[in-house]
């Protein structure tokens, strides 16, 4: 076609035009991740003041980052699932159950690697089951996983009698999961969390599969019309979430060398909180891995920050609740600004 060249020139002009200052500001505002990063920085500054500088002391960060990693690994899976429009309330039960089985196996002399493989398989299987129940019985995932949560908590209690399983022998696999990195304060679980985040960010934002997840969460009918195998993708999301929960249980086992059914309590709620603080929308279709990682970091910083500021830890849950509400209010507002104020 003869007008191809003029087309390209026009095209270039039109791109240049679109990058106005106002557009850039809007773009930045729309990048929820940047506002979450800002919130995290503000929180650090705030706690530095209220703790009389203790919060900036390097000694406390390894422990903040460890709890961030454990919550963060669960949260990444939960965020992927939520972006696709589903919930998983059974992540905490999955976390404990998988890690308890792994702890018992290793304590009884099974190799660490096999123990880990079994734990991750349990996570995948629980996720698969959650997905099949939700998708093929057409039950809202909130209810379906409320049910499986209670089932797994019950099963775990029956099997362990509620006791703690401690691994007394040395295991290289456990060290590699949650031991300290070359004798430094930081533990391996932090590295695993960051690696998982990087991989999942690429999967979610740079693959057709990730595109399908956003589409299903955005409007599953339209996704189906576009030829996306909606049910299959949703089941896979549950499996990713189950895998992440079990992996988080495994790294915590590596860190603590022990596990009990209660260790996974509250993860189902805090992981949703982390995802939401990180900009994941409850109705699906929006969210990011990086934001969710920051969300987990914010929740863990709150825990440590409150203690160092002399506030009773009993306040932690109340503060998390307030932060979640503030975060949702902020994201809603930013979303509106970005869409041109409707």
């Amino acid at each position, binding site marked *: 076609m003869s007008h191809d060249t003029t087309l390209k020139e026009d*095209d270039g002009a039109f791109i240049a035009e*679109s990058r106005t200052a106002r557009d850039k500001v809007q773009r930045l505002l729309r990048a929820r991740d940047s506002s979450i990063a800002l919130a995290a920085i503000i929180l650090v500054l705030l706690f530095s003041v209220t703790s009389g500088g203790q919060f900036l002391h390097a000694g406390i960060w390894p422990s903040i980052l460890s709890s961030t990693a454990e919550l963060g690994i669960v949260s990444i899976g939960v965020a992927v699932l939520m972006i696709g429009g589903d919930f998983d309330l059974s992540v905490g039960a999955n976390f404990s159950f998988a890690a308890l089985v792994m702890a018992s196996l290793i304590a009884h002399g099974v190799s660490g690697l096999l123990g880990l493989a079994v734990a991750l398989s349990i996570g995948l299987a629980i996720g698969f089951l959650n997905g099949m129940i939700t998708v093929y019985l057409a039950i809202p995932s909130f209810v379906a996983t409320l049910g499986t949560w209670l089932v797994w908590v019950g099963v775990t209690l029956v099997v362990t009698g509620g006791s703690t399983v401690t691994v007394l022998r040395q295991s290289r696999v456990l060290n590699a999961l949650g031991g300290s990195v070359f004798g430094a304060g930081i533990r391996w679980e932090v590295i695993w969390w960051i690696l998982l985040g990087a991989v999942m960010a690429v999967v979610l934002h740079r693959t057709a599969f990730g595109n399908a997840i*956003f589409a299903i969460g955005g409007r599953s009918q339209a996704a189906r*019309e*576009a030829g996306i195998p909606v049910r299959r993708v949703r089941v896979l999301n549950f499996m990713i979430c189950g895998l992440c929960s079990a992996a988080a249980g495994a790294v915590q086992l590596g860190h603590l060398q022990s596990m009990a059914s209660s260790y996974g309590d509250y993860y189902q709620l805090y992981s949703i909180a982390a995802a939401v603080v990180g900009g994941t929308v409850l109705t699906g279709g929006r969210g990011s891995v990086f934001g969710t990682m920051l969300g987990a970091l914010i929740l863990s910083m709150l825990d440590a920050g409150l203690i160092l500021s002399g506030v009773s830890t009993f306040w932690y849950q109340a503060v998390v609740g307030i932060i979640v509400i503030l975060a949702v209010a902020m994201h809603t507002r930013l979303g509106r600004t970005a*869409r041109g104020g409707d």
Partner: protein
Amino acid sequence: MEEQRQQRLRAQGITKKFGAVTAIENISVTFYSHEITGIVGDNGAGKSTFVKIICGVEQPSRGELYFEGKPVRFRSARDARRAGIEAVHQDLGLIESMSVARNFFLGMEPRKGLLLDVPRMRSETRRRLYELGLRNLKSVDQDVGRLSGGERQAISIGRAVAFEKKVLILDEPTSALSVRETAKVFDYMRGARQQGLAVLAIMHSMRQILDIADRIIVFWHGGLVADLPNQGLTEHLLAECIHSGVPPSQIHL
């Protein structure tokens, strides 16, 4: 343009019964490339049933469909889509929370290895929409939720053109649009026609039908009562035909 005209979709004696009720009876009509056909008729005249059959949502009780000359049987909307029949419903099949480029390529994403070819998605979307006549789009990275109704139509129509669909069915493409936006959507429809698609549009506004269609078919009480080129027709004649079922040539004013 005439010599390029090819048969795209032919319906032969299509009848659809729902129990004892006959929704449409013995419909025979052919749709061609490079042509915009307006489909009109009162509510319940049978036009939606007919459209549902050609896009695979319903199966005919009797009659045959021929796609590019070959007999076809669509068991589902997916079958019809795969063959190249794209139906754009009033919700447009778009996802508001996703960017223009991601919507454009939804389910057909270009890849580089395992990863999305995002630069290509963006530049292809921009080029396709530009070619179709959407020239003032700020960015292909903005969410579809921020676009006007006309711009959204451009994406749906542009998608059908880009993925080389053969038949494009539009359901009330200009309802709820301003006059200016309607004119733009007509441009996009002409763009699709120029690319060789057979464009079918269900529309209620006589005036708009007369503005855009090359040809008009009229449904009345489950039958096809008129199939005419858009020449010498008036809103009045067309309205009369829709209400009485008498072809315009036999209407004496």
